[in-house]
């Protein structure tokens, strides 16, 4: 919401009170940036005159490290930049390697990957559905969100051993077969989460104060979205109907988003903080639907292998390929260039949050300090995903 700065003259006499601009550093250590993002903002009273995101405090040189590790080791690194979408991060990389190798992945592995990717999406979105209201001063939603996360994490932990960095993908499939009875427990957990989700929703949806804080605040129009390469739920909240799961299907998404599948793309047209929050909330429901569908498909599949036997030294043939996946926070792409060695020659990472926070400079000008936090939180970013 850009408004012309209002001239405020206080007092009588010679020209009112002079006001001076104040430069305020939000971050790198600040409770609202959940990580080490820094914003340098110029304030006139509470109004933000200028805002500049300064990134790089968490740069870990991931892309350079990719170049000196073999493909099994890279997977460990690749799942870390966006620590809330670890499983989805793994998928993009293994898909790129598999495609360059021309490898066929067993169907059972593909469906399990799809299932876990969607559970990961729910986990990610629940995190933001809890933390965003917290930034607006509501302290309860995060406890409800984490209760659901805990149950979902339990099934993820059971299959992979990890609660955050699953490391369950391998080139050619998955690490292990599904534990016995796991699918039933996933189904029960999904049902449980679905049953308790209204608790969380009732605190977020329809709350007048939350509406007052988010409606019409931080409106992002489609033009800005496309020019900055914003993607994911944030782009869809501005009305950009794009979702790689449907538009460029990978894994089992062509069936999921097909005529009979449960998949659908959630969009809104408002482009404000409220629209972004609503997209996130509805995507949780869609992802739960998809996950349930995957469970049923997996149940009807014949038992079979979940991976492919790999050579001792895995070398990717010479060439280049780009694989982008629809991660929870947006498009996540890997550009893999190989010279036929056991390490990539170059592995470029396109992460969603980097582009998504770049628009902050445009969005924040002219807003109030309190809205700044509302907008910042609604960009749903992970600092590791920005800085890599």
């Amino acid at each position, binding site marked *: 919401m850009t408004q012309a700065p209002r001239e405020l003259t206080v007092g009588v006499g010679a020209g009112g009170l002079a006001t001076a601009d104040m430069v305020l550093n939000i971050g790198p250590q600040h409770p609202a940036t959940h990580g080490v993002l820094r914003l340098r903002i110029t304030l006139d009273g509470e109004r933000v005159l200028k805002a500049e995101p300064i990134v790089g405090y968490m740069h870990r040189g991931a892309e350079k490290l990719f170049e000196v590790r073999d493909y099994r080791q890279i997977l460990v690194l690749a799942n870390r930049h966006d620590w809330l979408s670890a499983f989805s991060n793994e998928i993009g990389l293994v898909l790129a390697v598999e495609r360059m190798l021309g490898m066929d992945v067993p169907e059972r592995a593909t469906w399990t990957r799809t299932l876990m990717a969607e559970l990961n999406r729910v986990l990610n979105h629940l995190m933001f559905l809890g933390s965003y209201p917290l930034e607006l*001063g509501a*302290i*309860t939603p995060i*406890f*409800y969100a984490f209760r659901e996360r805990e149950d979902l994490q339990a099934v993820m932990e059971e299959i992979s051993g990890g609660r955050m960095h699953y490391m369950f993908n391998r080139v050619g499939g998955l690490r292990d077969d599904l534990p016995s009875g796991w699918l039933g427990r996933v189904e029960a957990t999904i049902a449980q989460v679905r049953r308790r989700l209204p608790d969380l929703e009732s605190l977020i949806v329809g*709350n007048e104060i939350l509406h007052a804080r988010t409606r019409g605040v931080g409106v992002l129009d489609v033009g800005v979205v496309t020019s900055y390469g914003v993607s994911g739920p944030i782009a869809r909240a501005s009305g950009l109907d794009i979702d790689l799961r449907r538009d460029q299907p990978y894994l089992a998404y062509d069936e999921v988003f097909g005529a009979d599948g449960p998949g659908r793309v959630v969009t809104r047209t408002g482009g404000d903080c409220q629209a972004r929050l609503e997209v996130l909330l509805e995507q949780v429901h869609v992802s739960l639907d998809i996950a349930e569908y995957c469970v049923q498909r997996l149940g009807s599949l014949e038992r079979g292998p979940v991976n492919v036997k790999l050579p001792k030294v895995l070398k990717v043939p010479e060439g280049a390929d780009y694989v982008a996946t629809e991660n929870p926070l947006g498009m996540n792409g890997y550009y893999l260039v190989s010279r036929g060695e056991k390490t990539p020659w170059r592995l470029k990472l396109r992460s969603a949050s980097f582009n998504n926070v770049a628009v902050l400079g445009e969005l924040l000008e002219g807003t*109030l300090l*309190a809205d700044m936090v509302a907008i910042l939180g609604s960009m749903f970013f992970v600092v590791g995903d920005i800085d890599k």
Partner: protein
Amino acid sequence: MVDLSWFDVVLRAVIVLVGFLTMPLLVGQTEHKVMAHMQGRLGPMYAGGFHGWAQLIADGVKFTQKEDIVPAAADRGAFRWAPAVALVSYLLALAAVPFSPSMVGADVPGSLLLVLAVSGIGTVGTLMAGWSSGNKYSLIGAMRSAAQLVSYELPLILASASFAMAAGTLSLTGIAHAWTPVWLIWQLPGALVFLVAATAELQRPPFDMPVADSELVMGPYTEYTGLRFAFFLLSEYAGIVVMSLLFAVLYLGGWTGPFDDALGWLWTLLKGFLVAVVIIWMRVSWPRLREDQLQRFAWLGLVPVALLQLAITAVGVVLTA
């Protein structure tokens, strides 16, 4: 007012002080537990054994052990005195709140006026803290709290005026004496305005913009450590105690209840406690408003309703006189 011997004065002062030091702890512990259960967790469980009853005492001990830091850029005098200003104002206010006709620290004729006046001073402590800290977040927090003061003080006083007018006295004891169950209906709008404005005065959610942790770290209290910080926390809870009791006395009839000859003070306490739980409840369920939204709400919502209430009360008083 009856003449008091110096012994009586000291005794009353000591009792008020003891009440002032224990009731905020009770509210604080209630907040810990009530909030925890509303959020599906346990809250403190270990300190003291039974359901963590001693948690706040343990917190207090911890606070006293912390180093007392005054930032180099701070205005030393104002910085050091700010917590005292915030705290003492509510102590003075508590002294004038009656628990039963006979149980009141200082029964002054215009006690409603006194309570409202001194509890407003608490905000000055916040302002002093924000200004003197030499910290930009503190300064913004102080500005917000000043802006907030302007917007809620008027509806608060207008709503209180309605109660005073209905009772025909400015004395809290007199107002509670004049109370009848009919008040619950015809003073309802004023009571709601009072509750909202009181929450804003206390800087409690949804009106906690001055301390908004996700925006201003801790607002005016950002630079405080140890005991001085604890004093600010204590003054917040003391504020809840004072405002809840005031609400109970003004609108809920104070000590009126079964066996109120002997148990009057208990009724006042229970009613006040109930209001405190409502204030805690608001914190659990609502996000924070924006400063300008509060201003808008105060001037376009609370003030007209309070004026309307005042008119209703005036008509009521004239008709029944």
